């Protein structure tokens, strides 16, 4: 397994990843063994990680995984039950939200309905008692940044969903925060607008050069936008890495299942570079497991190639077929009853028997979770 060189990863016994305790660049935020409980329910369980200045981070996970809790902890709306949060190396417990160099773009945007666009953006500056001329200049700069010039006197109710979101971003960045927190800001937008905003947010982060922490449950969004992704589940960091690391080398069944579509099979490691699953032995590129250690094997559907039955490493009977535009989505079962999902530009008929071929590199072997996470 390879991780980004700038990060040293330490695994604890519970297979929880610590998200890079050392950073290469300037460290901006650090969580040290942070736990958060609500009325005895643990929503964040002994989490440690560090974040670097000027990068785009995504906290990815299903609802209730603790991702929004991390955001609220950084913003200061809640305090950790245990552990310490550092900002520029200094603990920021007891610093109220209004004194933190952090601003948030909320899921429902939380724009002030009684103020127009200009006054919404100016809110933070007015609180700081900035001079009127400076406020004007900064607000119009911020609005230009998000392509909303000329909308100053519009009411919030007159703005579309996408425009409201830009106002929310302008309102946050006008305060020149060191960290911008984004709580599922795209979830209320339709697909087309969402894709557009993904590009815009990424571009915005590059231009501003500040740290973005983006929360989402949408894995495609996370893969497309981030420098680094934290995959969370049940209050623990499952995996930390670049989008490519996480997609190509998922650390466990949960991550493999959550990130993209995949075929996950139970198997066992015969020896270094030799794994057994679906009743057969295959050459692979993984090593370092105990002999006969039970493992989970991941093969991405796009890594499977259709072949004649006699040429196939696996033979399946096609059960269903869907045309997805770019490719066909073929679903079938092998002789052992394992389900196989194939993405192929070639078509196969339902009921037909076809062979599947794949390279040794396509096989990704993972350690089995002690307690079964995920489905």
């Amino acid at each position, binding site marked *: 397994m390879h991780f980004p060189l700038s990060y040293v990863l330490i695994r604890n016994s519970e297979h929880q990843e610590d998200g890079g305790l050392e950073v290469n660049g300037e460290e901006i935020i650090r969580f040290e063994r942070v736990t958060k409980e609500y009325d005895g329910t643990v929503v964040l369980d002994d989490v440690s990680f560090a974040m670097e200045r000027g990068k785009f981070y995504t906290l990815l996970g299903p609802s209730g995984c603790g991702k929004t809790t991390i955001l609220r902890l950084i*913003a*200061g*709306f809640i305090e950790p039950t245990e552990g310490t949060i550092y900002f520029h190396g200094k603990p920021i417990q007891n610093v*109220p*939200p*209004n*004194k933190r160099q*952090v*601003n*948030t773009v*909320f*899921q*429902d945007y*939380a*724009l*002030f*309905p*009684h*103020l127009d666009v200009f006054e919404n953006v100016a*809110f*933070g500056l*007015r*609180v*700081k008692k900035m001079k009127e001329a400076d406020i004007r200049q900064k607000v119009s700069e911020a609005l230009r940044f998000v392509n909303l010039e000329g909308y100053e006197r519009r*009411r*919030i*109710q*007159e703005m*579309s*969903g996408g425009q409201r979101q830009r106002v929310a971003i302008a*309102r*946050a960045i006008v*305060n020149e925060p060191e960290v911008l927190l984004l709580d599922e800001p795209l979830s209320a937008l339709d697909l087309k607008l969402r894709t557009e905003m993904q590009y815009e947010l990424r571009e915005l982060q590059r231009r501003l050069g500040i740290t973005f922490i983006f929360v989402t449950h949408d894995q495609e969004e996370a893969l497309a936008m981030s420098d680094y992704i934290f995959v969370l589940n049940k209050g623990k960091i499952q995996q930390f890495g670049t989008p490519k690391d996480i997609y190509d080398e998922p650390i466990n069944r949960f991550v493999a299942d959550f990130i993209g579509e995949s075929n996950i099979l139970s198997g066992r490691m015969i020896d270094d570079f030799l794994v057994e699953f679906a009743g057969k032995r295959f050459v692979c590129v993984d090593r370092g497991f105990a002999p006969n250690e039970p493992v989970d094997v991941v093969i991405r559907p796009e890594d499977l190639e259709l072949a004649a039955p006699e040429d196939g490493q696996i033979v399946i009977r096609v059960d269903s077929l869907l045309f997805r535009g770019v490719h066909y989505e073929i679903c079938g079962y092998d002789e052992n009853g394992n389900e196989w999902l194939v993405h192929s530009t070639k078509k196969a008929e339902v009921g037909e028997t076809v062979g599947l071929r794949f390279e040794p590199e396509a096989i990704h072997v993972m350690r089995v979770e002690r307690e079964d996470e995920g489905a």
Partner: protein
Amino acid sequence: MKRTHWWGRVYLLAVFAVMYTPIVYLMYYSFNSGGTMHDFQSFTFKWYRDVLSDDRLLIIVLNTIVIALLSAAVATILGVIGALAIYYVKRQRTKNALLALNNVLIVSPDVIIGASFLLLFTIAGIKLGFTSVLLSHIAFSVPIVVLMVLPKLEEMSPTLIDAARDLGAGPWQVLSGVVLPFLAPSIWAGFFMALTYSLDDFAVTFFVTGNGFSTLSVEIYSRARQGISLSINALSTLLFLFTMLLVIGYYVLSQKGGRMYGIGGRK
């Protein structure tokens, strides 16, 4: 569709006729020179002239308005604070209990409230008059304001407060810059409700007015008992028109508020 509901309109008309006929009847005879409420002789403004030239009555009108404005203003301030307090109570049971206590005051009979105030003021040694009336009006108006403000507060997204704090606002700035402006329409509505409650209250006021101090409702009642004079009709008509004016004012304000806060959810 149009034809099937003609009877609905007739019904509506009948209901409003029943409700407004007595008032119209009363207003009609306030212009009667005959001095009785059964046969209309000729049109006159005499009774209105009588009312307007009655100094004692004008002072009472002034009293009534001062009491209404003062009590509504104080009740609005207290009511908003009360609503905020109830909003910030975390435990649902405590919250419900406080709300129930609030609502009991609105539904309980005015006579009982009036009598208990009389008892309280006597025990506390407060002289009956302006102060006692003002205090009792404030007291029965506060629950109304709470009831008007609280739903709007519950409707407010909690992230609005988070957003304000996130942008650097301290507790006072959150309140003055976000919460109060958001509540403004319902605060105004509460104020107007309190105003009308105070203006037309009879039962409570009747208990706590002493000698030499009276409000319009109490005065009309005592004059009506003394004997029939159409100046009472004139006075009632004026009072009714004034209330109408308040209702229209409230309507205009709430319309404006509705537009401001996009009740229609226009995108």
